[in-house]
């Protein structure tokens, strides 16, 4: 198996102009900065609910509506969220309205609590109590990170790169568990539990262990806990730490990120624009939720996976190649601003060029190398073909072989195993076994090929990569100069003009807009206070 590390290449494989790369990053910063400002000055119902979860409020009423939703709604109805939910909540606790948050939430649901906006000494006392109450949740996230580091030390990381990423998705957590354990025994290093279709549009996180979902299993705190425990067992058995992945996306992104930190998930899908473009979630809601989620992920030592592969499923993978690069640069900017480090940036890209066009494989190599070289220390996520999987499983198996080959030749880090039954059926046990054989064969036969593979100067691959990079710079320039009304945010303007994935998403429309609140002076969020002041440095992901 390959032991070649991409971090110490003898010389770069692509001769890219460092000035162009610098320009691309500086444009990404320019496009992203106004959005960050927007994110800093707004909050959302889901951010506020996440803070209450950190303060230990969990559970739901008999109809399944979480207590955090009840409490945030009650506070919002009575005094608004402009100063944050915790100040009126902990003021009420101080006034003896209820002994704890759960009772307070129950009483608030029944309408028997009155909230107020405290002033003076009451205000600072409420804020102090809020900070103290959120600390244990943050400490649990920190402990989980330390536990992960310890378990990785004990059991070890996968011996090879790329790490092998497999999906389970039965809809029933108790079916998912044995499947995930079997997958790990067959060679998977990372298990992703696909979420139920439509969960991203739920404005609450379901509770408890769930046994039915549509094409996936609901992300709940209990499901996270059950799966992590099962993978801990199998990690011990295999002598290899098996990582668990879920999705911090959709309307409850901040809460799910928080639950991931509380239950020691290892990777989270967390793209900066996916929800806006593909789920029609309000752009401001998304960027506010995004920033909080990424701060939590940074703290929890979670590796994020971004969703650039999705652009290529809607747009043409050759013509839209540069939009992937642009999105990677934006994701990198937003991630780093939120405190994530390079080793936590699982930037995504995919093998989606039509196999019917000439030189498709060479273009794939160019694109994959471009990502590799632009982000040398990021654990790149390499996604298999889906768009051109036709149902001809034999052809699909070959295509997956080429995908695997491109992955090892260009030193990708996280390889999502392609299934020949993509777009046909949920993979059979045998499909997964065949897919893993495919990966193993390619790793074994060609894992060291990266050492020999140096595309010639000004050859097809180098030229193509430079072209994509320069188109990415052009697009970023266009975004930065996309001015609407005075004071408007150019990136939001670009999104509403349909620059990405052909989707027009105006900033004043989309799902979850009514959950966005502009912060007033004096807004207090004890979680962000803790996240900003005592950030843990370093990591052991690599």
């Amino acid at each position, binding site marked *: 198996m390959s032991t070649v590390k991409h971090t110490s290449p003898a010389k770069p494989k692509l001769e890219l102009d460092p000035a162009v790369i610098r320009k691309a990053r500086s444009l990404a910063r320019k496009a992203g900065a106004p959005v960050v400002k927007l994110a800093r000055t707004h909050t959302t119902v889901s951010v506020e609910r996440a803070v209450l979860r950190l303060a230990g409020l969990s559970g739901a009423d008999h109809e399944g509506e979480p207590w955090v939703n009840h409490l945030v709604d009650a506070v919002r109805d009575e005094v608004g969220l402009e100063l944050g939910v915790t100040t009126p909540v902990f003021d009420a606790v101080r006034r003896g309205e209820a002994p704890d948050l759960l009772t307070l939430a129950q009483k608030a649901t029944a309408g028997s609590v009155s909230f107020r906006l405290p002033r003076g000494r009451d205000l600072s006392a409420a804020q102090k109590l809020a900070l103290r109450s959120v600390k244990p949740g943050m400490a649990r996230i920190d402990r989980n990170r330390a536990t992960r580091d310890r378990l990785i030390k004990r059991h070890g990381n996968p011996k090879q790169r790329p790490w092998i990423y497999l999906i389970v998705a039965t809809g029933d957590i108790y079916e998912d568990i044995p499947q995930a354990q*079997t997958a790990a*025994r*067959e060679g998977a290093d990372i298990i992703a539990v696909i979420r139920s*279709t*439509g969960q991203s*549009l739920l404005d609450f996180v379901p509770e408890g262990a769930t046994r039915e979902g*549509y094409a996936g299993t609901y992300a709940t705190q209990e499901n996270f806990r059950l799966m992590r425990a099962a993978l801990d067992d199998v990690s011990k058995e295999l002598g290899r730490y098996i990582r668990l992945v879920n999705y911090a996306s959709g309307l409850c992104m901040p809460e799910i990120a928080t639950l991931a930190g509380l239950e020691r998930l290892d990777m989270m899908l967390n793209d900066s624009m996916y929800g806006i*473009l*593909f*789920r*029609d979630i309000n752009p401001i809601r998304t960027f506010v939720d995004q920033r909080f989620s990424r701060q939590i992920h940074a703290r929890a030592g979670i590796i994020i996976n971004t969703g650039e592969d*999705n652009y290529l*499923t*809607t747009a043409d993978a050759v013509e839209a190649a540069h939009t992937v690069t642009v999105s990677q640069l934006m994701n990198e900017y937003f991630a780093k601003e939120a405190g994530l480090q390079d080793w936590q940036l699982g930037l995504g890209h995919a093998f989606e060029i039509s196999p019917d066009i000439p030189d498709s494989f060479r273009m794939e190599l160019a694109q994959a190398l471009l990502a590799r070289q632009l982000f040398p220390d990021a654990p790149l996520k390499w996604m298999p073909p*889906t*768009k051109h*999987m036709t149902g001809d499983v034999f052809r699909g198996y070959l295509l997956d072989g080429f995908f695997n080959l491109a992955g090892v030749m260009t030193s990708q880090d996280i390889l999502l195993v392609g299934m020949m039954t*993509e*777009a046909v059926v949920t993979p*059979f*046990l*045998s499909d997964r*076994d065949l897919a893993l054989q495919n990966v193993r064969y390619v790793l074994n036969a060609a894992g060291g090929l990266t050492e020999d593979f140096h595309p010639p100067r000004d050859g097809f691959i180098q030229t193509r990569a430079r072209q994509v990079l320069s188109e990415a710079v052009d697009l970023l320039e266009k975004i930065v100069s996309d001015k609407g009304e005075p004071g408007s945010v150019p990136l939001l303007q670009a999104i509403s003009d349909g620059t990405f*994935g*052909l*989707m027009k998403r105006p900033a004043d429309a989309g*799902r979850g807009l009514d959950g966005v609140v502009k912060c007033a002076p004096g807004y207090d969020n004890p979680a962000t206070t803790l996240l900003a002041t005592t950030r843990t440095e370093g990591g052991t992901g690599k």
Partner: protein
Amino acid sequence: MNNRDTSSKTASSKKASAQVSPAKILPHIIRPYGDTTGDGMVQVSFTLPIPHDKRAEGAALQLAAKMGLAPALLVHAKAMGTDFTFFIVYGSVSHLVDLRDVVVIEREFAMLGAKDVNAAIKKRLRRKLVVVGACIGNDAHTVGIDAILNIKGFAGEKGLEYYSELRVVNCGAQVQVPELVARARAEKADAVLVSQVVTQKDRHIHNTMTMSAAFREAYPAGKVPLLIVGGPRFEQGSEDALGVDRIFGKGTTPGEVASYLVHAIGVNTAQSPS
């Protein structure tokens, strides 16, 4: 253009053999073709939930024989973990296929790619076709309507939002009928898509009939937008009883709906050019 009446039933006509070029007469009875006419050779693969040993191979051959493979050749057997074995079997099937018994159920419309859908709408309407979608009544299951409308799509196909010549308005879940009618009028909808997943006490039928009646009341005759319902439990062919133009069942892809829309506007514009 396409002047075919939507109600003409082309289904269940035994015309499979009529579709091939007249130059070649097909036999009525055929067998699979491996490398020689009439050899009947096929290849199958399957997994049995038992460990790999001699007995497992015997079990695979027994299954092959019951599937009609004789002789069957077990070409590959591989253990997958301790509890499962994967097999590949080649063999000659004893079954015969009688082409005269093949029944072909055809869609009343042709399946089109996204490009062709967009081109057809451009040509026929010279503007975007407006689709308003919703889950009506108490139904909060937006899975179906989102799979059809959202750009994310379903089964590897992009949703209707992806089509540049379609303007999609997704009203979401639990939309009340008067609200839907008002929205359809405000948006000048050409088509209204309604998803009904909850079927307790025939809610889906009741809701759909209420919806179609409300549209007929609110619009002048002949101007009602295309009414389309989707859901797993609608009875195929009950369009007239429900007062809708088309029912789509489980597993419908966005491409099918888009192709139907093109077909339906073709019919409409042919009848009453506007």
